[in-house]
């Protein structure tokens, strides 16, 4: 599709600036809660191919010809006064939705990997993905009431992430805490952006 002419250098930066952040993590790690706590959460549906992984989950008896199913994605938007909007996209955790990650990651400023200490291994796939893509990410350990508490150092060792990658403890049900998660990823992205382009 041919795009109409649009020159970012000429366009006023204050007009319609969108920043995209991804919220990743295993199933039930709190992605929907995080998006809902800090932003106006909005329904967004997309299609996913029905694969053998969906057997037992999606009942396709009688509709064997059906090749896709509709899935809901977590989608939130925070519109700031300065005409900048922050878009949050939850990356669906289940393996069969991996095909969507490349599209979601395109143009993202950073990602939050939500981790649950009871199922740390669930966050490995997301961490690997963002490391490989070179996308700035932070690990936010969602402190569930019933989950064992570990200090950040032990979580870092268990996840084997770079010392540069911020790890924070949070409770995404609380607005202040959820806000700090977003602050930490934007700060991290800013730090890395500064390194990309040495001081002018």
């Amino acid at each position, binding site marked *: 599709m041919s*795009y109409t002419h649009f020159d970012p250098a000429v366009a006023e930066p204050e007009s319609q*600036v*969108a920043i995209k952040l991804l919220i990743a993590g295993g199933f039930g790690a709190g992605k929907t809660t995080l998006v809902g706590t800090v932003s106006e959460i909005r329904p967004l549906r997309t299609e996913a191919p029905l694969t053998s992984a969906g057997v037992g989950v999606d009942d396709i008896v009688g509709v064997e010809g059906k090749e896709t199913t509709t899935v809901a994605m977590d989608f939130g938007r925070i519109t700031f006064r300065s005409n*900048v909007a922050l878009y949050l996209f939850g990356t669906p955790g289940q393996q069969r939705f991996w095909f969507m990650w490349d*599209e979601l990651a*395109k143009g*993202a400023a950073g990602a939050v990997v939500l981790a649950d200490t009871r199922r740390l291994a669930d966050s490995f796939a997301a961490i690997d993905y963002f490391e490989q893509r070179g996308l700035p990410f932070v690990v936010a350990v969602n402190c569930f009431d019933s989950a064992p508490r570990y200090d950040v150092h032990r979580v870092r060792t268990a996840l084997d992430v770079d010392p540069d990658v911020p790890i924070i403890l949070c409770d995404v049900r609380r607005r202040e805490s959820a*806000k700090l998660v977003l602050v930490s990823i934007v700060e991290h992205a800013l730090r890395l952006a500064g390194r990309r382009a040495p001081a002018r």
Partner: protein
Amino acid sequence: MTAPKRRWFDDAAGPIVRPYAVSRGRTREYGETLDLLAVIVGRAPAWEDRRWLDPEHLRLLGLCRRPVTVADLASELGLPLGVIRVLLGDLHYWGLISVRPPQTHVYAHDERILRIVLNELYTL
């Protein structure tokens, strides 16, 4: 006097039209796949265009009088992204909308913009 008609369906019953019925079964749009955050700007359709455009096309056009992203449109209309992309592909083909590529990949590394976001987050 006749009894008022009772509605036997409501929102809880889900959509009564299959999603791809509004795109006439098409799952592929004309041209490239639109980015989630591509910005769409529509123009008011001429009166004679209104007669042959589908209701969904008209609703989309109504929503993009001001610049709006593909994701916002899908969310607003409650239709799956794939359907929205087909309908927007039609409108673009007919010259009723213009599409701005998203600048997210530029702003993602723009320190000034990231600082604005950070300050806004602090005051949220």
